[in-house]
């Protein structure tokens, strides 16, 4: 075999490979937990399902614990292996990705708390609830795409996710004005309507986290940070 001209995927030190795989597997699991939390958010919103919302709040502890253990693994790899090049990018980014996912978990918990405490039905605003459910679906789509990219070590959806984040931001703005309108029309429902504000805000921020993960994945794959100029380009394209 001509070993000189072939890049071998395996490290000479097998235990290093195992540690990296363990870390990647952990991040993929964490991503899976975040996806489940977001799916639960969508269903709880749609069905006003308080039991599911409570379960989701409880499940956030698992996300936090996994995030901490991944941070610990990353720290050990840095200390023991002094990774370089693509390994360095992957290991360094693992901490960021795990934190973004943990934030998503927190925000899902936030949405679920509002569902449990406030009563969506009292808001008497099925349109806004529908809009929030749709927003959740869009955010879910983004998260699915970035996690797929991350797991495969590709950055093919980074720009799409950006574009859809801009749409997410504008749906968010629309929902806010709709809620404001509702409050003006039905001041008596204000207590039930205000939590919808928060829910919209949480969902919009979950979208931001997905975009952050897309940026990190792009960095891992290419070694370059997606420049602000590139982002501007996308924003220009998307302004109507």
């Amino acid at each position, binding site marked *: 075999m001509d*070993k*000189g001209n072939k*890049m071998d995927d395996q490290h*000479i030190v097998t235990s290093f490979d195992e540690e990296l795989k363990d870390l990647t597997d952990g991040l993929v699991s964490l991503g899976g937990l975040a996806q489940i939390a977001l799916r639960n958010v969508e269903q709880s919103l749609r069905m006003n399902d308080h039991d599911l919302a409570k379960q989701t709040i409880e499940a956030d502890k698992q996300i936090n614990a996994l995030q901490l253990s991944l941070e610990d693994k990353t720290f050990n790899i840095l200390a023991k292996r002094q990774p370089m*090049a693509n390994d360095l990018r992957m290991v360094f980014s693992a901490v960021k990705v795990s934190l973004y996912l943990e934030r998503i978990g927190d925000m899902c918990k936030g949405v679920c708390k509002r569902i449990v405490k406030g009563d969506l039905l009292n808001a008497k605003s099925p349109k806004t609830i529908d809009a929030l459910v749709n927003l959740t679906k869009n955010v879910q789509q983004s998260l699915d795409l970035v996690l797929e990219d991350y797991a495969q070590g590709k950055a093919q959806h980074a720009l799409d996710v950006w574009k859809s984040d801009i749409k997410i931001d504008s749906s968010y703005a629309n929902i806010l004005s709709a809620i404001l309108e509702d409050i003006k029309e039905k001041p008596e429902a204000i207590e039930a309507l205000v939590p919808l504000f928060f829910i919209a805000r949480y969902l919009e921020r979950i979208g931001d986290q997905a975009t952050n993960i897309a940026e990190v994945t792009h960095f891992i794959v*290419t*070694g370059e940070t997606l420049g602000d100029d590139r982002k501007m380009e996308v924003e220009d394209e998307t302004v109507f």
Partner: protein
Amino acid sequence: MKLNGDLIMDEQKEQNNIRNKKSLIECRGVDVFYGDKQALFGINLDIGEKEVTSLIGPSGCGKSTFLRCINRMNDVIEICKVEGNIKIDNEDIYHPDVDVVELRSRIGMVFQKPNPFPKSVYDNVAYGPKLHGRILHKDDLDAKVEKSLERAGLWSEVKDRLGEPGTSLSGGQQQRLCIARAIAIDPSIILMDEPCSALDPIATAKIEELIDELKDNFTITIVTHSMQQAARVSQRTAFFHLGKLIEVGDTEKIFRSPDHEQTEAYVTGRYG
């Protein structure tokens, strides 16, 4: 403030990947043979003035061979033949008119194992300047020895032991003595071939600190097997493999995101 013309120049430089740093050593199409066996293949490499360039690559890839081309040490190996062009400060160092002894006096070399002469600490450092007939008066020589030991970060440790044999020093001190010996001849270039491989981490850190200081006055090329060392001490890194230069670039680039898969495989420890 930059004028428009400067900006255009900068842009052009960036596009052509031309560096602002002046190249002191320019190698073009360097082939080296040991008898029938070719050890280096068409090396094109520029080494910037007053900065540290590290040469990395697996054992046997030709790093030491390349280093020895620069001070024509390969000349002393009977079967070794060097082809191609190497210029130092625009002078072709393989031109028949070149005085090899004079050339070597401009280039200091430090080896893997500290190799002080079996002489006193003082004489180790004084040897070069005396040999090259550069310093004739005892006072000047004393000053030269002190200054060289000072620059090598060794003076305070040996100033009361100047008469003792160089070999009586610790390994790390011996290596700094060899560096003092190398700089005593006022070279413009210092070549180091795995200078820390026989040293403990503290002695290594001292040498690295020294290299960092020396680069303000000398052009340094260092061969090292430690990625971390290359990353710490050098501004440029060149990766050799099987006698070829695969990639050269800013050290940060090489260790963060090299262009070539082979470089990535090597620096991440994926050599199969």
